[in-house]
């Protein structure tokens, strides 16, 4: 039995530079592994790229980049993805980048799309699409066939989305600037919906340590309200048998398991396996609360265990009402 005290939280918060309330939450979630968890958030990961097979075959691009001095290591399970161990040039400024040969993208974000499994005969909706890392991978897996509806509400971010769609040679997208919660008004019947929800972004602390200090307890509640609206809208968009993948880059169960638990009660959804061979199971109890047992099928990724930023993925299927 681990006894956690307020002074533990303050000590660890001071040691790792967090607000104390965050560490208190982590102690409740990770218990005796909290120190390891916090250490893991301070480690750096190699950057990753995804070769755009709409533009160039994978071996050809690998050869080109290696000839320029890049050291690339394959990423297990993602044939088009590489960790960049050494780069003599800025990855975002090579001719190959400008030609749309690759995208700088985290493996976690690629896994979310792999779990969605889009096909070229489908209508896929990407609800919070900007800046387009996942949308462009959806198009790649669909081989530019079928159709993608991509939305984002932000005027600035949607410009990045458009730029990336163009650079990455995506030809099968229709982009709407709108609140994704209003998407059901369009009357679409999607085969697959990707909801990478706006979140506190705690999982990105390894990439952006300022997040150790930038959030308040109220953020979880505020964002959960947005996430609930979006997941209900996502479920409405789906045809029967269609799949919805919900993801966030947050560790917070309020933004993950609680949202899915809410959706299971409010919408005709059931959780199905992600078929990912790694990742921790979703939580079914936390902070003294209990959620649907099928949430164990969701997947959690932690920097200290899985060598990537924190991420949550859950796959659901629409059932008859």
């Amino acid at each position, binding site marked *: 039995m681990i006894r956690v005290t307020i002074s533990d939280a303050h000590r660890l918060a001071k040691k790792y530079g967090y607000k104390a309330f965050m560490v208190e939450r982590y102690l409740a979630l990770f218990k005796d592994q909290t120190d390891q968890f916090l250490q893991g958030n301070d480690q750096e990961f190699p950057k990753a790229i995804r070769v755009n097979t709409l533009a160039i075959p994978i071996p050809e691009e690998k050869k080109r980049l290696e000839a320029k001095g890049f050291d690339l290591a394959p990423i297990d399970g993602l044939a088009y993805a590489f960790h960049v161990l050494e780069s003599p040039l800025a990855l*975002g400024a090579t*001719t190959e980048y400008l030609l749309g040969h690759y995208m700088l993208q985290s493996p976690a974000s690629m896994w979310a799309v792999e779990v969605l499994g889009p096909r070229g005969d489908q209508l896929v909706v990407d609800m919070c699409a900007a800046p387009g890392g996942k949308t462009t991978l959806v198009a790649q897996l669909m081989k530019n066939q079928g*159709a993608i509806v991509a939305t984002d509400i932000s005027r600035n971010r949607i410009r990045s989305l*458009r*730029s990336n769609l163009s*650079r990455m040679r995506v030809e099968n*997208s*229709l982009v*709407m600037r709108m609140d994704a919660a209003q998407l059901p008004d*369009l009357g679409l019947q999607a085969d697959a919906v990707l909801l990478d929800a706006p979140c506190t972004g705690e999982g990105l602390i390894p990439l952006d340590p300022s997040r150790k200090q930038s959030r308040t307890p109220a953020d979880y509640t505020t964002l959960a309200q947005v996430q609930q609206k979006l997941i209900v809208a996502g479920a409405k968009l789906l045809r029967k048998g269609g799949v919805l993948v919900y993801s966030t880059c947050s560790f917070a169960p309020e933004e993950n398991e609680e949202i899915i638990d809410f959706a299971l009660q409010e919408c005709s959804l059931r959780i199905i396996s992600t078929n990912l061979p790694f990742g921790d199971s979703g939580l079914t109890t936390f902070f003294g609360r209990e959620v649907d047992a099928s949430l164990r099928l969701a997947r959690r990724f932690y920097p200290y265990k899985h060598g990537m930023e924190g991420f949550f993925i859950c796959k659901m299927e629409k059932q008859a009402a």
Partner: protein
Amino acid sequence: MQNGKTSRLIFGPPSEEETRQIRQGLVPFISEEAVNRLLEKNRLLLGRGRRNEVFVVSSPLWKLYEQVLPRHPYFIGIFLGELRKGELLPSLHVLNYLSSNIRPEAKILADDKGEQRFLYGHSLATSEFVGQDLSSVKSGSVVVLNAKGEGLGYGHLTKSGVKTQVKNRLDLGWYLRRGR
């Protein structure tokens, strides 16, 4: 040119005259046959607003477009370019298609140094061209390719005596300078 700003566009099919202007804008770069291949299974949509933006839309996207009306998309299919005063200014989105089908008289091949300079927005001088007989290249709009034959952008070629110069009109470096 590329559109770096957001503006609301009202979409609809182009008029016959606008369609003619759009086709006319592609013909200096690629053959009529290549224009037909691009358009035969697709349809054109014109987004009218502060700018007039032309899009090439596949059948599945066209159905979606009709479904989402009266809402208008922000972007759809392939952004072909901007229609300005009756002239089509081709986009970076369609550059790869144009480069793959480029007329010999509308292409300029840049050497490695020229490639880098062009991608920084600079013009190209004769010394930066590589492996081609410039006498066959016409003055006017050209596509600039690197030595591997990959499209880097658009330029305007001028000849003055023995000097040939390509003024940069739009290059892939736009994605870094303005596209983020």
